[in-house]
């Protein structure tokens, strides 16, 4: 009995005239975009992995980066994901004021992360790291570092801009719960990418 009704529901969901995943085209499109954007980072990280494996040695990250500081950056970014989730929840319940406040906190987290990154970059540059060379031996080490973290940073910056638009619209009571949710989806994605970069570039 239950099996037939389940089969029927699969049939009816795909029969046309309805959205099979029960999502709007906006959300479906954003999910697809996130997959493609994720593959972009996968390509960059795979390229980094390739040159690292091909290299006879690789600089010791613990001597170059302050891993405590990187952990703090990671903590800030993950926290901003939590505030974002709270904002989405509040927007769903129609509490626009709360949603606005938590979006602001998320923006603050994003800016905090970007400032940490700017500090880290300027410190490494002052120590002599360039795209084409660095004091630690393997030139591709700093090249991969600047390109991968720079690319991720530009994604965070984009996220901050998107969230600012959401906040501005929330202030004028013109934001839809889905609008906050979509911005949140992108924000979580950017955070997730950082987890991969943190693991693959800094830790192992």
């Amino acid at each position, binding site marked *: 009995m239950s099996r037939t009704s389940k089969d029927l529901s699969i049939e009816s969901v795909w*029969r*046309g005239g*309805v959205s099979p995943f029960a999502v709007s085209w906006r959300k479906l499109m954003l999910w697809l975009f996130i997959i493609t954007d994720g593959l972009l980072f996968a390509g960059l990280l795979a390229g980094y992995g390739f*040159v690292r494996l091909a290299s006879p040695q690789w600089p010791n990250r613990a001597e170059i980066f302050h891993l405590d500081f990187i952990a703090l950056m990671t903590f800030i970014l993950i926290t901003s994901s939590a505030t974002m989730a709270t904002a989405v929840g509040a927007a769903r319940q129609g509490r626009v004021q709360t949603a606005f406040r938590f979006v602001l906190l998320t923006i603050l987290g994003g800016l905090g992360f970007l400032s940490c990154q700017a500090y880290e970059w300027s410190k490494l540059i002052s120590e002599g790291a360039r795209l084409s060379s660095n004091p630690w031996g393997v030139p591709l080490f700093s*090249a991969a570092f600047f390109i991968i973290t720079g690319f991720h940073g530009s994604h965070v910056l984009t996220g901050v801009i998107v969230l600012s638009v959401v906040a501005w619209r929330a202030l004028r009571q013109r934001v839809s719960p889905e609008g906050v949710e979509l911005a949140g989806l992108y924000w979580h994605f950017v955070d997730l990418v950082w987890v991969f970069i943190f693991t693959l570039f800094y830790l192992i």
Partner: protein
Amino acid sequence: MAGKPSVHTHAEPTSFWRRYIFSTDHKVIGIQYYLTAMGMALVGGALAMLIRLQLGWPDEKWPLLAKIFPRGMSGGVMNPDFYLALITMHGTLMIFFFVSLGLVSGFGNYLLPLQIGARDMAFPFLNMLSYWTVVPACVIMLASFFVEGGAAASGWTAYPPLSAVEQAVPGSGLGQTLWILGMALFIASFTMGGLNFVTTILNERTRGMSMMRLPLFIWTLLIASILGLLAFPPLTAAAILLLFDRHGGTSFFLPSGLYFGERVLPHSGGSPLLWQHLFWFLGHPEVYVLILPALGIALDLLPPFTRKPIFGYRLTVYSLFAIGVLSMIVWGHHMFVSGMNPYVGEFFAIGTLAITIPSAIIGFNLIASLWGARLQLRTPALFALGSIAFFGTGGLGGVFLGNATSDIQLHDTYFVVGHFHFMIGGVTLLAILGGTYYWFPKMFGRMMNERLGKIHFWLTFIAFYAVFLTQHFLGFGGMPRRYYAFSKFEFLAPIRDMNAFISVAAFVLGAAQLLFLFNFFWSLFRGARAEQNPWRAATLEWVAPTPPPHGNWGETVPEVHRWPYDYSVPGAPEDFTPQTVPPTVVEVTR
């Protein structure tokens, strides 16, 4: 609970600019894409003619051409760098700017909402944006011929170090930078299009249009779009790294010890193999992005002219999925001679040969669709049959190339050139042309000339075989591709002169397309007025008025009750039953 698809109620724009130039209507955008692609095909074709002129008669002088290309053909003799730029741009323009744009973006945009019963794409503005992103890409690609050093010359695959070291050949300078820029814009545009296609197919189908009632062209479009979305981002990543190698001093693709002139280049640590992996991770799925919609058109063009359903619909859909999945894990078969662990090569060879199974299923389904047919050899049917022939011929060549053992012999010879021209050149060309003859009445409300169309088909078909089947034999003889002349090679002396024959056939092939061009524009203004459903076809687009108005369907969106291939249903009043006919009138077969 399943959500309702959003209803599009855009008012019809009235100003000329919003209606024909910056339009968000999928039909206008589809035709814009189609015309752009055809324009790029003319350029790409002209480049091919120059290539054939050089290969056919490498020792002749062409003073007239010296006037048109003072640098590339100085003194009437083709400069080797210019030849490299020609083959690079011929490949780039044809693959990305003709076939991708024409088949996927052109026919895809025009037909997708019409065939699934939607009013427009899911996100019409993004659709417009994607077109207006590809226009500058076209301009940049064409402009690269006129900059210092000429257009890019590292092949359509842009292999480093030619593409990464700026001073390598003249085309490695600004021309290569523009090539990367043009490709970046193209990828951005194609990604926007792919997002729109997948979302629209999944979310915007009309009531009753279940996935298993989609025309096969829509299925191929869905899988091609998914492949594009998955495969292009890694190429984007590679292009970013290449830009940094060129302009930022990094060396992702450049190993140490590269000499240029008397000087050692400062690069170290990279590998050109990295580019090859990232490129072919795109490159191989990309050929399916091209050929699957072409097969979709061939599959959809058959039933109206055989007056019977397509054979093996379900199995074709499953095979398309199988091809899609397998195509993502076989890129290494382009690199059998690049240096690869033999065990890895074996993996790639087995994967590649596995693709022949679903491909053969589709091929046999196409042939079996002809069994018991009441065949009407109108022009679109001829083109559909022709593309089946090309698919078979090219597919057989693919078996040799997919196998590492034989590929090591045939790699980088004219066998490869002949093979991929049949597949991503021939099948797709015939599908685009056949699709044009077939959907022209829907797009423009007039019929194309049938007699000219048939002459065009036979000239194209025979000349194509003469060019590219012959090239297979040159490949067996060991003639390498990308060389601008073979006069100096002793071992090629017995087969060298076949190039003149190929060139003559290529000129016939080129000239035949002018016939099509004439037919297109003549029919646009003088063709016979088309009825609403001139081919008596059952798919949904023929239910819409001709040409379809803004919003496609008037007051109500049609509801679908059957699959798109109900031809010659016993007991039906006519030998075709449109998808909108309710089950009370004609029995639903599926």
